[in-house]
């Protein structure tokens, strides 16, 4: 280990001498010098839960890791932005949600470290195709290493489906929904024979997000123009979700924000839900022990691949420990560690090797569903989504508009027009 470290230090010194830039960075810590690396993340990345920070400290004497996590990403990001702007208070390693990565790449390249100049450079090639592309600037600078991704499936309550006389086997169910219209038709069938108080799907917004997750071009085109209004895929997804909401196929529960949504997992208020891989852990947490064996997972209608969510870790340009931080994130995102995190908290790996490794995984909570196979298939067949800096604003306006439709506040056309006005007002 000491030999390698000296070698990289020498290499770095060499590259510094070559570029001959008057960098103000302090010299990399000498081997054995105690170094504290601060890591600031949001939600559940799973590293602390799996004990990876302790493992890394044990394997690297002299390194201590100071870890903090903010529960909500919507609180985490603004706080990070103010610190980045003031240049103080940022951690050596910061989490970046996929919805923010386009903003980072397009507007903040100078605030983050180009990982090509660090030991993390070796890790860039080990991801599935699109993951690192999204974190790379047009000049080729890589600003983050991928952690997890959110390949899509449909989670469903097999007990409710059985009561309504629908197939409960994932393969049979999947065969009955060749596309999203098939999914809605199945919903009509369910609704006709469903137990009282149970809706086919949780929310129109969730359905919309699932449909749109299979698209390559969503809100922006390849040259960075906002095209949501003219993109037929967006309008189609919106109309399909609105139709489901108007037909009473949804439980009208706003995802994550309505306390009734959380309760619905256990109480059986809805039979299906769009299921990015990270939802697996969420369902277990909300439905609890009593829900074990009631849930199952199948692929998206027509076996389409899609992605919803996932994250990166980057190193702010002001970090004094770039070298050590880069080594840490390289290790944390290595295939072996990603597989461990998936086994414990369900965050799906983004490196090709780890995806292959977990493809045989099954989950007893979900009736032994082959979650590894379902999600790895979805991940590898997912399109390379074009991301944009204002994706979050547009997405929020869409899901709000759909909530207004399903709760009877607006017709789809009015809601669509309102959403458009809000977006223009905000993004312009």
């Amino acid at each position, binding site marked *: 280990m000491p030999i390698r470290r000296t070698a990289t230090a020498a290499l770095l010194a060499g590259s510094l001498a070559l570029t001959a830039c008057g960098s103000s960075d302090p010299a990399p810590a000498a081997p054995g010098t105690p170094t504290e690396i601060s890591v600031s993340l949001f939600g559940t990345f799973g590293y602390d839960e799996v004990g990876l920070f302790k493992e890394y400290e044990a394997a690297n004497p002299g390194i201590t890791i100071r870890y903090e996590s903010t529960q909500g990403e*919507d609180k985490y990001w603004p706080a990070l932005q103010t610190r980045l702007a003031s240049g103080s208070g940022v951690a050596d390693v910061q989490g970046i949600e996929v919805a923010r990565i386009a903003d980072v790449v397009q*507007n903040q390249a100078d605030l983050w470290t180009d990982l090509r100049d660090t030991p993390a450079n070796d890790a860039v090639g080990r991801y599935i195709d699109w993951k690192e592309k999204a974190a790379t600037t047009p000049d080729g600078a890589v600003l983050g290493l991928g952690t997890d991704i959110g390949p899509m499936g449909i989670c469903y309550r097999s007990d409710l489906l059985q009561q309504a006389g629908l197939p409960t086997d994932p393969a049979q169910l999947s065969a009955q929904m060749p596309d999203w219209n098939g999914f809605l038709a199945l919903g009509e069938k369910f609704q006709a024979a469903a137990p009282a108080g149970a809706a086919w799907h949780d929310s129109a917004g969730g359905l919309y997000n699932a449909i749109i997750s299979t698209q390559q071009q969503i809100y922006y085109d390849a040259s960075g123009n906002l095209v949501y209004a003219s993109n037929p895929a967006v309008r189609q997804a919106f109309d399909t979700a609105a139709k489901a909401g108007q037909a009473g196929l949804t439980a009208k529960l706003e995802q994550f*924000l309505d306390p009734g949504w959380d309760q619905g997992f256990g109480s059986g208020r809805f039979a299906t839900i769009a299921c990015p891989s990270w939802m697996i852990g969420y369902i277990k947490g909300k439905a609890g022990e009593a829900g074990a064996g009631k849930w199952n997972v199948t692929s998206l209608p027509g076996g389409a691949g899609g992605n919803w969510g996932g994250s990166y870790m980057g190193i702010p340009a002001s970090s004094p420990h770039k070298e050590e931080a880069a080594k840490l994130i390289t290790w944390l995102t290595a295939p072996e560690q990603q597989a461990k995190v998936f086994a414990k908290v369900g965050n799906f790996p983004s490196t090709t090797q780890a995806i292959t490794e977990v493809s045989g995984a099954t989950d007893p909570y979900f009736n032994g569903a082959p979650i590894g196979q379902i999600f790895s298939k979805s991940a590898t067949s997912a399109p390379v989504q074009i991301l944009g800096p204002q994706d979050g*604003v547009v997405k929020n306006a869409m899901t709000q508009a759909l909530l207004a439709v399903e*709760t009877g506040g607006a017709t789809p056309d009015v809601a669509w027009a309102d959403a458009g006005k809000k977006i223009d007002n905000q993004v312009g």
Partner: protein
Amino acid sequence: MLIETRAAAPPLDVPAAGEPLPPAAGAPRRRSWRSRLHAAEARTAPYAYVAPFFAIFLAFGLFPLIYTAWISLHRYRLGSRMSWIGLDNYVWLFSNPSFYNALWKTITIGVLSTVPQLAIALGLAHLLNYKLRGRTFLRVAMLMPYATSVAAATLVFALIFGRDAGLVNGLLGAVGIDPVDWRNGDWTAQIAISVIVIWRWTGYNALIYLAGMQSIPADLYKAAAMDGANRWQQFLHVTLPGLRPTILFTIVVSTIGASQLFGEPLLFGGGQANGGPANQYQTLGLFMYQQGWQFGQLGRAATVAWVMFLLIIALVLLNAWVARRRTER
């Protein structure tokens, strides 16, 4: 505030240098014997006493106020630099239907919460003003909601107003009314939020009224009772006129509070600043927060903040004007 007025009072007793001494006053002659240092201290000490307040007010009151105005004249996105755009943010704001929506919602929720709140508080205070058994306990109990954190109270109320398993819908169901989707409806959500505000602030206002009522001489009640006035008539003709200044004070304070309403609608919506799918309970406070921290538009958020500030000043002036007219009449 009391401390400052007291500290500032002494210099008035000290005649300024060069001023002719009042002939009858014996004290000033003795005062001239004092050392100059002592006199200087007497003159400057009050300012030293009030200095901390003004220093803190400058740092945390005046400076942010002026800097916010400065920011509002810029395009300032979170994570980038400020660039001067003059009054563009104000043009954007006043041509934005979302702003008028938020303004309107602030008014409707304000009325829905303030009017019942003050009416109930007045009634409660009137009842507590009589000799009741366990009066102290009742007075303390009334203040409990005020001592509860907004976050805790709102989260509990969000569950109480839940559509599927909420207490309110359970009670409505018991009398045969269909479940109401409180959080997604327009007026229903506003009513639910108003209930939280009313629950939290009624006791506080009732205590203020109670204090005001106790300064009304008991003789007046006795005299009224002797004339055959019942409790309701006593309330109308003795309590209400006696309480007028107190009522005006609570109206001013509640109006300012209502125009800044933020925590309740934010947490009722699950921590999102949308204020419901159709922004049906997005107050000005939420609108400002959404601009700044959800959309990262600090310049626009600063603009909203300044317009809110001016609105509140206008409200206070209006209140003062109404109050002056009433007392003059």
